[in-house]
């Protein structure tokens, strides 16, 4: 993206209050690897701040700049200057996949094919010092399942206390994956409980609220697409990055506008009227363990039989059910232990909340 395109996007967003009605705003930069373009991000952020102030925009009182990075360039001088300059309004997330072996399976340098784990991990202490409550996000695909337990433990050992982790929504699952997944989570549950990590650490796979039936009153859409705006390098607008062509497998991009023409509000209407029951098949509506079962609107669209965002993809069904079984095990085991130690009340009063990660 060039700076002029970014400025046009900022101008449009700040001058269209009827479409952007939230009291707060998050300006998120994603890649590729965004820190490779820290100069550009810096210029864009300066422009955002100046324009919000110049226009007396309410968001000047409540904005956040967030960056998702692979962490390799985190300690670079330019990046550190940027952090210092925007410290009060900045959130940076570093992605670590798990152990060195697991991380380097997927994350290698382009030409040398050397794994990047060591270069990332050396920056973790500085990152944690600058963003003490930071969490990391891990996405699990079929090949990753055998490494879940060791990866989560490793991330905890690096000093990261919160891990947001989810399985991919795409239909990648092989027969038996759910069984291994359940075993991994059960083993992880044992480790967390046996080592008393539950006071200080959270892994979002374990959440008391999941695995319950949902009645029709719980009808909100899970996904935030349409309530966010995603902008590509050319200045096209999407309801979420997953609707950009490079993210789609079988469908053509769902562009809702661009920096010059603005948003075509008609193209947003399906997203803003989506609800759980309209897009869900009967088996999901009647599911006894429905709560916490997520979906991705982009994957729903990509996998749908017709051109619609109203057909829920159910590829993660068996994985969700496996998660629910392990989750039930975790809470039953944990609460029994706490009761026997007469610590349940104390735990419940102080427990760390797991906020569901809604993208």
């Amino acid at each position, binding site marked *: 993206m060039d700076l002029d395109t970014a400025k046009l996007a900022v101008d449009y967003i700040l001058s269209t209050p009827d479409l952007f009605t939230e009291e707060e705003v998050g300006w998120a930069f994603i890649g590729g690897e965004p820190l490779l373009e820290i100069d550009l991000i810096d210029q864009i952020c300066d422009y955002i701040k100046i324009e919000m*102030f110049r226009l007396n925009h309410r968001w000047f009182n409540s904005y956040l700049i967030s960056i998702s990075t692979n962490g390799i360039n985190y300690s670079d001088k330019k990046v550190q200057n940027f952090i210092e300059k925007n410290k009060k309004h900045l959130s940076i997330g570093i992605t670590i996949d798990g152990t060195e072996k697991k991380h380097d399976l997927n994350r290698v340098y382009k030409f040398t094919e050397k794994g990047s784990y060591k270069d990332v991990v050396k920056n973790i202490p500085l990152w944690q010092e600058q963003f003490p409550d930071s969490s990391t996000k891990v996405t699990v695909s079929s090949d990753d399942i055998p490494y879940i337990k060791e990866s989560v433990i490793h991330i905890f050992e690096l000093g990261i206390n919160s891990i947001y982790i989810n399985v991919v929504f795409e239909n990648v699952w092989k027969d038996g994956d759910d069984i291994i997944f359940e075993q991994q989570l059960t083993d992880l549950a044992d480790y967390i409980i046996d080592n008393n990590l539950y006071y200080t650490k959270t892994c979002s796979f374990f959440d008391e609220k999941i695995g319950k039936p949902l009645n029709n009153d719980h009808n909100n859409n899970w996904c935030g697409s349409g309530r966010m705006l995603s902008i590509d390098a050319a200045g096209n607008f999407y309801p979420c990055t997953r609707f950009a062509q490079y993210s789609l497998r079988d469908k053509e991009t769902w562009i809702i506008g661009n920096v010059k023409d603005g948003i075509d509000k008609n193209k947003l209407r399906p997203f803003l009227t989506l609800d759980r029951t309209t897009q869900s098949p009967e088996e999901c509506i009647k599911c006894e363990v429905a709560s916490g079962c997520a979906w991705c609107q982009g994957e729903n669209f990509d996998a749908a039989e017709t051109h619609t965002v109203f057909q829920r993809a159910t590829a993660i069904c068996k994985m969700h059910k496996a998660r629910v079984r392990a989750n039930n095990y975790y809470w039953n085991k944990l609460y029994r232990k706490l009761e026997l130690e007469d610590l349940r009340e104390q735990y419940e009063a102080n427990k760390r909340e797991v906020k569901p990660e809604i993208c």
Partner: protein
Amino acid sequence: MKKLVGQVTPEEKNEIQQLFERRNGLNELAKILTADNNELYEKLVKDMGETGSKFQGWWDRMSAKYKWESTENGNWEINFDTCEIFLNF
């Protein structure tokens, strides 16, 4: 040392949180705005003064209203999540 000395209402908390956020925003903006940009620079300076006054005014009003415990060289702080007021001394 830190001691819980009181609590404000959520509305009162929102007021100071907004001023706090604005002050942070102004401070970060001050790092990039120079006197070359005359009009905005003057606006910034004026706003920093006004926001600072409102910020102090909030603490004066609230401390008078709730009569929080204080100490010499101590200062109060607020937890935005709980609306609790602490005395640091």
